[in-house]
């Protein structure tokens, strides 16, 4: 948001996994930029590569995964070639921390939460035990858990509280970037909202940036500044959330928005995106959405579209689609004539 140096930049990053059938491309030429203090939403269906990016950013890519090409810059410094030791000494917890999927088993069940915090502090900083505890108590306050409960064991917490304790750990060493991978997916809707209330407060303070990785586009629209929509390893579209909401230019973006239920409009037809994302073996030299895209032409299977600035936008708004203009026009024309919608659902009546 500020003009200063971005906190994180991905430039044409390709990540592959070695599999029995050859090299599987999980992320293909992905680029996006996250500013200082910004909340950035990374959205897509399962298999789109969003979790691979999360793992890469904290240096926890699976053993068979490699960053094949591209640059990842954290505060201007290239980190794509960092070793495990580099990550541990330089980045983890104090610079980049992670909130993993809220599935109740991210904390050590036989260790007090305070002991887990002390361990992190001792490995990564020279804080004393009492300084660490004091800091951790403060953070419990921030995430709305009583300070007295830092000596509890994880099982003494409800799912929402446990996830908030993990947020407290993620904030513990004042990182500049937090990677939140589906932080509330396993939580009920009221607890999810409670967790986001605290994430909002952290955002207000503006000290940490966040990558919010989720399949739930509504969470991103509510809580983030910018967004990147991914399909099967490629970034389809990226920009400010208002821009992407008001003026989506990639067919996958506007179809995904149309597929998303909104409880304010229970009668609205939900859009169906036919097919499923492909598995990309080897180099990806086509648009990965081509088989599902109603607007695809031959060109789309012949080369991968570049992520380029959308000419009609005066803010940063990049789209990777050869048919962006025509598709957008066709799609919204159909919207005005509801009868012609072939791929649409009739809700209940």
């Amino acid at each position, binding site marked *: 948001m500020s003009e200063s140096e971005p906190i994180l930049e991905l430039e044409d990053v390709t990540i592959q996994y070695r599999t029995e059938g050859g090299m599987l491309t999980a992320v293909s030429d992905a680029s996006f930029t996250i500013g200082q203090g910004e909340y950035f939403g990374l959205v897509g269906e399962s298999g789109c590569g969003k979790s691979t990016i999360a793992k890469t950013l904290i240096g926890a890519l699976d053993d068979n995964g490699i960053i094949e090409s591209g640059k990842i810059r954290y505060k201007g410094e290239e980190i794509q070639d960092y070793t495990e030791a580099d990550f541990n000494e330089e980045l983890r917890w104090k610079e980049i921390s992670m909130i993993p999927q809220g599935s109740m088993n991210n904390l050590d069940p036989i260790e007090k939460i305070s002991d887990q915090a002390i361990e992190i502090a001792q490995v990564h900083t020279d804080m004393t035990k009492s300084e660490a505890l004091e800091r951790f108590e403060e953070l419990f306050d921030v995430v709305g858990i009583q300070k007295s409960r830092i000596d509890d064991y994880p099982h003494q917490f409800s799912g*929402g509280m446990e996830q908030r304790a993990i947020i407290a750990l993620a904030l513990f060493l004042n990182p500049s970037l937090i990677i939140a991978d589906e932080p509330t997916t396993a939580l009920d809707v*009221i607890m999810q909202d409670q967790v986001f209330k605290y994430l909002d407060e952290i955002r207000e303070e503006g000290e940490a940036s966040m990558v919010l990785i989720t399949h739930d586009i509504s969470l991103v*629209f509510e809580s983030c500044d910018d967004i990147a929509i991914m399909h099967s390893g490629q970034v389809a579209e990226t920009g400010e959330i208002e821009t992407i*909401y008001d003026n989506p230019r990639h067919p996958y973006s506007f179809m995904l928005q149309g597929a998303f*239920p*909104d409880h304010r409009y*229970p009668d609205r037809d*939900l859009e169906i995106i036919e097919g*499923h994302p492909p598995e990309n073996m080897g180099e990806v030299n086509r648009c990965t959405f081509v088989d599902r895209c109603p607007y695809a032409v031959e060109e789309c299977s012949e080369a991968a579209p570049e992520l380029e600035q959308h000419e009609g936008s005066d803010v940063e708004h990049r789209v990777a689609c050869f048919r962006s203009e025509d598709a957008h026009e066709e799609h919204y024309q159909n919207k005005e004539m509801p009868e012609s919608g072939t791929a649409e659902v009739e809700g*209940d009546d």
Partner: protein
Amino acid sequence: MTENEPVLRLEKLQKYFQEESFKDRLLGRETEPVKAVDEVTIDLHENESIGVIGESGCGKTTLLRTLMGLYEPTGGEMYYNGEPTSEFSRSEWQEYRRNVQIIFQDPFNSLDPKFTVRDTLKEPLQVHGLDNHDERIHDVLEEVQLNPPEQYIDRFPKQLSGGEKQRVSVARALILEPEVILADEPVSMLDVSTQASILTLLSDLMEERGLSMFYISHDLSTVSYICDEINVMYLGRVVERSPTKKVLKDPKHPYSKALIDAIPVPDPHYDRERTKIEGAALDPVDLGSGCRFRDRCPDRMDICEKKPRFVDVDGESIASCHLYYDHESDDTAADIDEQRLAGGRGSSTEAADQVGDD
């Protein structure tokens, strides 16, 4: 509809779990039961689709398992076409299980990985001694739009996408030509792009086959595509019953309100306030007789220590909440007619003594 006998009728259905350790028994200690389902009354009529909504721990899965006959109710009664299931013989249970089929939540784990689609669909036919296997399998695959069936019939689950797997689950439920489908969050594990197609399939099938459906979910934003009416459950009790669109627009019970207000809205221009509800739901153990939501309720009053009655709030919504009736006449006023409580909201004769708050 109200004149017809319901296909399924739950009357004050109760399922308590008595957790008693060996030590408790040795010391002769009485333990409090977990009241997972506590006096739930719901009617399901022919070709009707009723939703049960609630968060984890509200008892919706226990309710579903009781409906499947996996749990024996500890109180109340369940009627299938007017016959109490507690008096069912073995053959009647088999008949019941043929007519009441389930679609599970997780298509990734509810199909046998070593069964082809054909094996999966053949098994129920063999169990229930039906013939014409090939024809039935072919037809049902067409019906769930796995076309052409020949292309899918010999595949294993790992060769199917999530949406295709869920279609096989739907086919497995349909192949015995049931009257009632129990659907346990059938779309919650699917990607949003396939979610809509399964929802459409289910609502089309209901229409074509005249099926009745019990739809269980935690997700209020998709229920409107399937359910005519929903029951909001909290800690084992139904707290509100309303037509789906009504409850989304105008929830009456404070818990329903909290639940709906917490749903994220996919619109950056819409300024939704974060939830004001604190804490998490308790375990349904030893909570006394009062309203189960009272410890978190923003509208809490002293009277909430007493069990709230079901009242017809506005001719459409029925809520179990002290906000909606006049306690002066509490002792004399009759509880809302059980028949109407169970489902059919026809003419309103008893709404006279109720006070709405808005």
